[in-house]
């Protein structure tokens, strides 16, 4: 459906909901175009292209909230859905915080989240980048004979928003990504390594050769890995591992979880919750950031929010509703897709870079350098932490042998307070990123 008419439909449906009994209503229309190519052993394994357009409509009636979404924008269907949703909304509980945003003045002029060069990339270009990345992986080392696959893709998205008070708002955004997963084989052992880069702007994407090369380094580093005996030792997380850890930690910063006693950080505003080297920021306004946008999914302007300042907890992340409940300004973290309600989600979430990366390992007499994390062991409710990891063993400040088949565990509060080193190697290849960090002491559980 042509975009213009879809926008008109989104407006018409909102007005219809208001006329049919909603005191407030909000339309969110999303149009996405994606292309992805997957290559393996020089051959295209998958080529995928799509265009999707979906509409989400939130309605509020006597402070009760109802929501509908659909990809079917025909009049009869929308009329029926609006009427049914309004009827169902009567069953919800009225809540004071159920109120839609009344004011939005976007002050940022250009956040640089749309790159025409990404839209202009053709399938043949994606195939070429993937092929170069795979060839460079094969060229690195004889132990690389196969890949799981190499993927290259682009996406462009257009968002349209309006509500009872805020007239039409819109923005466009792009993304481009390239990943390689070579498999290293030695004896009977097979280990894979993945390197993925993702950017808003094509010009910032790592070169395909580099992606192939770094993925191979990761796969080779895992060959010959074995468990180490259980011990309590300093543990360094690589930037990649620390970024994943931060992503898993985020639910603890959600104001909704804090209010409902589902976060180990509840009630700790103003207290030291991490080592003094740790500053954690959520910044929805970062230029070219993968999580950057002008406004969130409920019409709140995005912000830069310092969650932890030099170890001290300063703020939680809010949706409009939680901000109203705690009577604080919203942070613009009510993110969504057309088919979900706004939920507290990070925009660009990161730990600020520290002073030295090399020292983190060099200062450790005996310890573990973690490059990979797996599993569901980050419990932000109880504050317990335990994950399967792999990486390298550290002896006298030097990486000595590959390690796998071990876990690291601790209590999240003690772990964070015990961070005694933060690296400089902060790089954004996702909307959540961290430099390398060192935990003073964790339990490594391994072989007998």
């Amino acid at each position: 459906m042509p975009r213009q008419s879809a926008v008109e439909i989104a407006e018409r449906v909102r007005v219809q909901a208001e006329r049919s009994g909603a005191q407030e209503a909000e339309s969110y229309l999303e149009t996405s175009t994606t292309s992805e190519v997957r290559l393996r052993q020089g051959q295209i394994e998958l080529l995928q292209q799509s265009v999707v357009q979906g509409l989400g409509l939130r309605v509020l009636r006597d402070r009760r909230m109802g929501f509908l979404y659909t990809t079917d924008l025909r009049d009869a269907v929308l009329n029926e859905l609006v009427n049914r949703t309004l009827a169902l909304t009567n069953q919800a509980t009225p809540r004071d915080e159920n109120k839609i945003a009344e004011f939005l003045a976007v002050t940022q002029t250009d956040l640089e989240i749309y790159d025409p060069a990404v839209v202009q990339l053709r399938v043949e270009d994606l195939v070429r980048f993937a092929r170069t990345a795979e060839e460079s992986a094969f060229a690195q080392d004889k132990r690389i004979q196969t890949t799981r696959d190499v993927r290259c893709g682009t996406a462009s998205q257009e968002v349209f928003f309006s509500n009872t008070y805020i007239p039409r708002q819109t923005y466009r955004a792009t993304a481009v990504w390239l990943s390689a997963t070579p498999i290293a084989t030695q004896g009977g052992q097979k280990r894979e390594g993945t390197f993925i880069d993702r950017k808003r702007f094509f010009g910032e994407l790592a070169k395909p050769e580099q992606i192939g090369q770094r993925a191979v380094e990761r796969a080779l580093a895992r060959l010959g890995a074995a468990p180490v005996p259980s011990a309590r030792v300093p543990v360094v997380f690589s930037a990649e591992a620390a970024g994943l850890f931060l992503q898993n930690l985020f639910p603890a910063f959600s104001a909704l979880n804090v209010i409902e006693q589902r976060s180990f950080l509840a009630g700790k505003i103003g207290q030291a919750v991490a080592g003094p080297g740790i500053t954690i920021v959520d910044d929805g306004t970062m230029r070219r950031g993968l999580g950057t946008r002008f406004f969130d999914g409920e019409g709140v302007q995005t912000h830069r929010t310092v969650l932890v300042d030099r170890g001290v907890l300063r703020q939680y992340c809010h949706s409009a509703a939680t901000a109203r409940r705690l009577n604080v300004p919203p942070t613009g973290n009510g993110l969504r897709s057309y088919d979900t309600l706004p939920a507290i989600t990070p925009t660009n979430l990161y730990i600020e870079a520290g002073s030295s990366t090399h020292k983190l390992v060099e200062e450790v007499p005996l310890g573990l350098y973690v490059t990979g994390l797996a599993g569901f062991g980050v419990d932000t409710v109880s504050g317990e932490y335990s994950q399967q990891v792999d990486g390298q063993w550290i002896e006298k400040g030097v990486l000595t042998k590959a390690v796998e088949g071990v876990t690291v565990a601790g209590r999240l509060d003690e772990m964070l307070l015990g961070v005694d080193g933060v690296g400089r190697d902060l790089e954004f290849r996702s909307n959540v990123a961290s430099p390398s960090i060192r935990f003073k002491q964790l339990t490594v559980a391994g072989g007998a």
Partner: protein
Amino acid sequence: MSRRDFLRRGAVITTALAAGLPEAVSFLNPKAAEGALMGIGQELRDVLNEETVNRILQEALARGGDFADVFAEQRFRTAVVFDAGKIDSVTYGYPRGAGVRVVRRNQTGYAFSDELSYSSLLDAARVASTVVETQSRTNPIDVTRRNPAAPFTLVAPEPMMPEAAKLDLLRRMDAAARSADPRVVSVRIEYVDEVRDVLIGTSDGVYVIDRQYITGISCAPIAQAGGKRGSGLATLGGRIDSTYFERVDPEGAAKKAGLQAARLLEAGPAPAGPMPVVVGPGWGGVLIHESLGHALEGDGIRRGTSLLSGLGGTRVASPLLRVVDDGRWPNGRGTCAVDDEGTPSQRTVAVEAGVLQSYLLDKQNSALLGLRSTGNGRRMSYRNWPIPRMTNTYIDVGTSEPVSLLNGITKGFYAAELGGGSVETTSGNFNFAVREGYWIENGKLTRAVRGAILIGNSLETMQRIEGIGTDLVVDTTRGTCGKDGQSVPVGVGQPTVRFSSITVGGPSI
């Protein structure tokens, strides 16, 4: 959690099975797939009859290729979030769309659109066919309507029940969870049900229309005291009808989850290191799903990237082990009459007496391996192409009295209930979280522990099975499996199983 933020971290390379409330999806009675969906939209057959499907398939194979299919889908979803004693939000969702796939050997072209019309599908067919780099042409066989046998019958599918009854159920569960212990401070309940219509037309002559139902409820209480917090979880549902809630006691389940949360307040830190481990029945089957199940899937086998590639007919596990994938298990989350390629579902014995008997296959990978599809070609929605996936996967019933499996363990670990897990199928390294765990001391369960995980290597761990109980339970309530960015509902199960050694990851050494 946002289901599909395209700015999210990219390729998912490991597979993961998360416990919790999911994307809802499917079960069916093929003959019931007549009439508009929940009074909304159209019958899929009115949009795409046999003749239009034939024309789209001809267009898809016009440039060559071995195989093509058309997949159209519409869903009607009802969701309710009940938090802090209040009905927080109510949602109706009606997504629909269709995709066309063209396959030439190991190559796949896929194009999809949310527009469900003949002309947009012809466009999709042209885009998908650009993947083909060959002169060899396959003429599609004209499709014929099939009515595959339903794996079981739902008289009154639960999603068709009135909303008022559903909301009342959630209120009762909330009250029951809170009544379990005064330290229960918070309860969040999520309800999702869905009716899904699919239409599948394939160039090997299949035309199937199917209507599938699924319901899922999760109830997550939090207990708090003295700066400690514990969380519990109860899940209910599956491809169920309205009588289900008379059989399962929803309030009892919610109360049990409240007690589970409260018990964690007194639990000690988890042990660390290798030790004998016993895993309880039911959802514990996540263990076989991660450790062997994913490695059995045909894509990794065909590419040679799975640790089970080329091991067909050989011993890969303890001789006590029989592993079954059953797409027809009654009420199972992974149950359907046909998979998403139109192949009738089946019961596959993948491992018998420890010997690898069968892989789990879709059409494309089975053709490349010279085998037949086992009805495991599944997809998350019309936005995804089918890939080999598990349905309901379990360790089959054994011969040991469950209690006897603790005998002789001087110091070990009992995992009464697991959480989510994941595996890397190349190395076979897997992990899962333990939701409820206990020390075993001298053959008896003693102290409760918190925050444990279990890790291991698939083939090593499967050799270490020492005993399998008689108490098989297949969970139909909580499995959602993620692979390659696609989430699908699955069942997992097992009886009580004892391992000579698994590494427990906790803080206490």
